[in-house]
């Protein structure tokens, strides 16, 4: 048992605690976010990305960031995004929240977790068939916004601008202005 295990455990505990407290482990709150009734979960997610992107720029300058960009496969990433959206909209859980929600004691999340393990096993079984079919032929590589803007700070600024506009749009278009708790 190296320090890696303890770091993972510690990071997971902190992560699970925060997402429970903000309400992301509640499938009810997640459904209300998707139905444009409550905006605070998507705002929370988008803001966390903005702050992480800015912080990561600092970590990279300091030379302590361990980054790994996943490639974009136009078909595999796209098909997966559509399937994932169907599952997420249907049950209100995503892979990370199932663990924290199951720990919290939500029985439906325990079943989502078991279903997730089954889905993982089926995909692992079909990997040799599906990846060459859907992923590899359409893989356009590890592209990032830096490829368009030319330098990292400009790409971070672009991301902050886009995500900031999304947060603004959610604030205007989702019904509950105060986290939906005011209705």
């Amino acid at each position, binding site marked *: 048992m190296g320090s890696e*295990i303890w770091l993972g455990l510690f990071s997971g505990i902190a992560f699970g605690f925060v997402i429970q407290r903000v309400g992301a482990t509640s*499938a009810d709150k997640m459904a209300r976010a998707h139905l444009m009734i409550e905006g605070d979960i998507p705002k929370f997610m988008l803001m966390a990305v903005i702050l992480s*992107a800015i912080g990561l720029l600092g970590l990279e300058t300091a030379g302590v960031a361990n980054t790994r960009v996943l490639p974009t496969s136009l078909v595999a*990433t796209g098909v997966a995004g559509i399937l994932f959206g169907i599952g997420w909209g249907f049950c209100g859980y995503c892979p*990370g929240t199932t663990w924290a929600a199951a720990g919290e004691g939500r029985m439906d999340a325990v079943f989502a977790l078991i279903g997730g393990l089954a889905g993982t096993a089926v995909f692992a079984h079909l990997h040799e068939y599906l990846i060459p079919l859907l992923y590899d032929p359409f893989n356009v590589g590890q592209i990032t916004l830096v490829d368009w803007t030319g330098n990292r700070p400009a790409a971070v600024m672009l991301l902050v601008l886009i995500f900031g506009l999304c947060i603004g749009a959610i604030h205007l278009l989702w019904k509950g202005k105060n986290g939906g708790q005011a209705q």
Partner: protein
Amino acid sequence: MDKKTKSPLFWPWLPAAFALAGIILFVFATFGPPASSSGFVSLMKGAVQTAAPKYVENLTHYAMMPDTGSWLFAFVLGMAIGGFVAGRTGRIPVRDIPEIWEKRFGNSRIKRFAATFAGGFIILFAARLAGGCTLGLFISGSSQLAVSGLYFGVLIFAVAMVTSRLVYGRTGKEE
């Protein structure tokens, strides 16, 4: 913001986003991009290889992931512990069936559990196809300015919004 008479049940989104970003940056500094769907692979690999080691050895998807003795599995296990501690020390009600689901489909546990089993199956199958989930692909990827994360993010939010409308129908509108 207008103050309510009782203190809010949930943390407000902005300070919570600062807390989460702090954890994400800690993970980038001490490990690499945070991920949670990989933890499912690590657990399955650990479980299946005890029963069928030959089967696991021959599959690329298991070969490319560590088993349960890894950061990836420790992280998801930690998330369950974090959820447990937060649930026990807070006031957020814990339900087996979400309110909105109960309003739409009734209080059958079997129906809800079958639905989340199916939903869980789909999201993990999809996440393994893309190489990551909401955290491992969307949040980690977008923080690194990856197009894969942004592309995946746009699709999951858009499709989930449409799906939830189809699932909840009028129940959602009446809220």
